[in-house]
């Protein structure tokens, strides 16, 4: 009976909404599997919308879930989440993350022009030694980050100034995260599980962007159109 409380299945206009309540993600996941097994006949042919609440779920895990549902003859259409990282991961798998939009069949010929964007915090000051800034979304700083200061973001980090402290982007495991700064010379730069330090710079300072390419943190000039 307790299992039932963790997962709720409800028919809505857009399809079948499955809500997973906040718990340990592994627990919630096994409860979800259990429910789907029990009710697979009732669910057959339906379009599934999965609401995972605050859980941060990696793209690989979402993929597994989708494949598991496919094995059961179910189609996962959308993943709803309060976490921008989960949303981004779902989008990267081609899953919808909003259900109040018109159904995709009807929108194939129209162009979506209203963008929703992702959550970020903006800080307009210099982070001096000893100060720390943490956010599960993206972080934008207008000012410098001095040695001894630190930034930890679930998503990307953009510094309009000199970045000389410690910076960790994609701190919850997002390897697609990037770090951009006008002067990118952090004492240490981390993206997801990768760690890099800044080589001694000679020559002119120019804006740079760091990202992971083939498992290595690399910095490239940050120019218009760099994505």
């Amino acid at each position, binding site marked *: 009976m307790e299992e039932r409380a963790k997962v709720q299945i409800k028919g809505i206009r857009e399809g079948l909404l499955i809500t997973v309540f906040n718990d340990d993600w592994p627990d919630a996941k096994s409860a979800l599997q259990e429910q789907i097994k029990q009710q697979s006949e009732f669910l057959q042919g339906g379009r599934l919308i999965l609401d995972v609440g605050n859980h941060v779920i990696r793209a690989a895990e979402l993929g597994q879930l989708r494949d598991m549902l496919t094995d059961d003859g179910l189609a996962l259409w959308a993943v709803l989440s309060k976490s921008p990282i989960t949303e981004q991961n779902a989008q990267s798998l081609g899953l919808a993350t909003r259900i109040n939009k018109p159904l995709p069949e009807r929108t194939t010929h129209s162009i979506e022009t209203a963008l929703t964007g992702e959550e970020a915090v903006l800080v307009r000051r210099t982070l001096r030694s*000893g*100060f720390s800034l943490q956010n599960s979304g993206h972080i934008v700083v207008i000012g410098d980050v001095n040695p*001894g200061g630190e930034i930890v973001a679930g998503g990307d980090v953009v510094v309009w100034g000199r970045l000389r402290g410690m910076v960790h982007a994609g701190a919850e495991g997002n390897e697609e995260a990037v770090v951009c700064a006008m002067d990118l010379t952090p004492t240490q730069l981390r993206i997801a599980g990768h760690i890099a330090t800044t080589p001694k710079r000679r020559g002119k300072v120019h804006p740079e962007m760091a990202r992971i390419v083939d498992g290595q943190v690399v910095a490239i000039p940050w120019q218009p159109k760099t994505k």
Partner: protein
Amino acid sequence: MNDKVFTITSGKGGVGKTTATANLATALAVDGKRVVCIDADIGLRNLDVVLGLENRIVYDLVDVVEGRCRLRQAMIRDKRLPNLFLIPAAQTRDKTAVSPSDMVRLIDELRRESDWILIDSPAGIERGFRNAIAPADVVVVITNPEISAVRDADRIIGLIEAEEKGPARLVLNRIRPEMVKRDDMLSPDDVLELLAVELIGIVPEDDQVILSTNRGVPIVLDGKSKAGQAFRNIASRLEGQKVPFLELESSNGFFGRISRMMGAGGD
């Protein structure tokens, strides 16, 4: 009301807080102002030694705070300048003997009868530091051109901002122009680029400072010392005067130009 309470602090120890306090207080007193300097480094007092007043201590800061004496009784008059006073720290107690609100009360009492009040802060960012900055109108941060000292200065400036004590002012102490020129030492520009606060003085390294400290005679009283001149300039800037910075790069000075010209002629 104009600013009259200045706290001198640094974060890192040994960068010259006490030397700066003694010299700025003396320089302001030489200008005829009534100056009180306070040693807030309870347990590790030094300011009395640098001013040469160690043997005159009867009562100290903690005695005042705990009501064992009146404020006037703890004010030691300088032996050279009758309008300069020192309130020494207790040597046998620690920082917890005084609270930030004690300091604010004590300084409020002093404000009425002083033109300038200078507080010598202990190193660190704990209670002693908070005691020292609580009553300040302006906080002056001293640093040396070394990475570690500058890092601590940055941290301290951040804490001062967080305490809403207004923008800190910076004194860069013990700079060696010849090393800066060779790129072996951080330049004032390097330090300012990081700290981004108002610079009110650059003091050159000067062996005479050690002698003056040992003798208990502040270097500002030595008319020939470059460090003494630098401290006199800082005092004038605190008084609101516009004073140009010392030309520290001796080779760019008058004699430097002359010798270069002669060198060029000889070629």
